[in-house]
């Protein structure tokens, strides 16, 4: 049956009629941004109605409550991710800023010209462009861990690349296009560490969707965005190992990140505050904690099994359509994302037709993963992505619509 894991009332947006003929919304774009449950929205409203205030700046009751909610969120997120201590959790504006901070706050100080950063080809641009930028400015070398046309990182080439003694390896936990964890990811991380490299992991598609254990993964940096885990946009996290954090310098200056400022200079505050200049997205931090609490109560294992089952149903269904090719390796469990191409029809045209005539929301394009698409020798794809509120009927609606569209009997735009 594969019904929603949440009460229907948690997501009233799913009652919207969005197609030209008033079709029910079929939301299959959760990897871009997940829907926000009512419980999280209530928490945000409660925060603004009762405690709205800045943090760490006043001694009045509202400031106290606001500071408490904000720092409680940090402690909860640290615990949720098994980070070790709340001081290792830096709040950012999203995974992209988190990964840029790895480049700006860590690599720009810890690395020297000529040092190598290895970037896996299945990364999102967030874990690619920041390294290109730093290479241009600081003379770092960017090496690539190639992705085969089968959607698997080239292990032989990886071992050869390690001989160059990279200082950082940039990996993704779950590809935002392929939807799966690379086979042997743990070994990759272990190899990287044995070679003396630090590891930056983009966990934007895994946190809130499956169990994620920062200490178990043994990475130095882990980034995610709240809006992909049923939280609000504009908020994210960078979790750091104690060793890596000790090598970081603040990149942004301003209020909240200093202990002392004078004409002669400034003294930064202790971490993590020295990395959080200005007033942060307080309500979004509270919302993120609430969203993670919700999936934690539900059970991350159950959630992962649910979304994997939906992906399996989709992959099996697509296999019956000779004009459709699913991207990536066969036989690997896709957590919440399936991307595919349709012979003879551009992904944007598919996406537009699905939206206008079937009320189905999917994403089309390169999904901020151009090197990945180049490695798979396809310029763009259609991506369907699910979450705990997605259902078997959503997948069936997509399969039925694609069958009509590809058979030429589909409703025309």
């Amino acid at each position, binding site marked *: 049956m594969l019904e929603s894991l949440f009460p229907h009332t948690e997501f009233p947006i799913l009652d919207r009629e969005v197609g030209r003929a008033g079709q029910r919304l079929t939301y299959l774009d959760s990897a871009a941004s997940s829907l926000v449950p009512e419980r999280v929205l209530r928490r945000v409203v409660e925060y603004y109605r009762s405690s709205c205030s800045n943090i*760490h*700046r006043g001694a009045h009751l509202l400031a106290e409550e606001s500071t408490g909610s*904000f720092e409680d969120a940090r402690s909860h997120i640290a615990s949720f991710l098994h980070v070790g201590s709340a001081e290792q959790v830096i709040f950012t504006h999203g995974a992209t800023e988190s990964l840029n901070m790895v480049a700006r706050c860590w690599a720009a100080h810890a690395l020297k010209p000529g040092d190598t950063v290895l970037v896996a080809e299945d990364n999102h641009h967030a874990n690619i462009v920041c390294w290109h930028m730093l290479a241009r400015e600081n003379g770092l070398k960017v090496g690539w861990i190639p992705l085969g046309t089968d959607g698997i990182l080239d292990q032989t080439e990886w071992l050869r690349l390690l001989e160059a003694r990279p200082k950082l390896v940039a990996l993704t936990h779950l590809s935002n296009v392929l939807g799966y964890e690379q086979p042997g990811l743990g070994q990759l991380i272990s190899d990287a560490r044995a070679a003396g490299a630090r590891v930056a992991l983009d966990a934007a598609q895994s946190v809130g969707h499956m169990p994620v254990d920062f200490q178990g993964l043994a990475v130095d940096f882990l980034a995610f965005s709240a809006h992909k885990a049923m939280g609000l946009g504009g908020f994210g996290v960078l979790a750091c190992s104690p060793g890596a954090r000790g090598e970081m310098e603040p990149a942004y200056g301003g209020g909240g990140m200093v202990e*002392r400022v004078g004409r002669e200079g400034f003294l930064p505050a202790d971490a993590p505050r020295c990395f959080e200049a200005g007033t942060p997205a307080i309500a979004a931090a509270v919302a993120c904690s609430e969203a993670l609490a919700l999936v934690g109560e539900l059970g991350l294992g159950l959630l992962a099994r649910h979304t994997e089952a939906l992906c399996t149903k989709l992959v099996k269904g697509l296999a019956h359509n000779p004009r459709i090719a699913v991207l990536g390796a066969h036989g690997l469990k896709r957590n919440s994302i399936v991307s595919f191409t349709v012979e003879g029809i551009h992904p944007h045209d598919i996406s537009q037709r699905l939206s206008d005539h079937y009320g189905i929301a999917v994403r089309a394009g390169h999904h901020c993963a151009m090197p990945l698409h180049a490695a798979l020798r396809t310029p763009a794809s259609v991506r369907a992505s699910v979450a705990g509120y997605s259902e078997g009927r959503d997948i069936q609606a997509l399969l039925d619509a694609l069958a009509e569209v590809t058979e030429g009997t589909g409703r025309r735009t």
Partner: protein
Amino acid sequence: MYCDDPRIIERAEAPAHRGRLADFTHTASGDNPFCGDSLQLFFKVNDQHGGFIEQASFDGYACSLCLASSDLLLDQVIGMPVAQAHSLGLDSLLLLWGGLEVGRARRGCVELSLRILGRALTA
């Protein structure tokens, strides 16, 4: 016990360890930018017996909670091995007060002297 407890006010108004040690061996300063507190701590460390704190004092501008907590902390660390003083944390100080309840916004006021102590004895 709350931040406006008479014991805190009394200690803040008449601290036992306020002033500048003439013959200090270690010192450091620190600020709490959120409320403007700015303190300097002074320690005279005796290297005998593995190193212990013989004398300590503080000076500067701070709120009642910060002044009183600094004074209480120095009360405790005088005579203490340096390593033991290093191990003191926020919870230790709250316990010393007898279970002080302090919210997140004022925690920095209690922690300031602890942070400076760590800095001074590490230097």
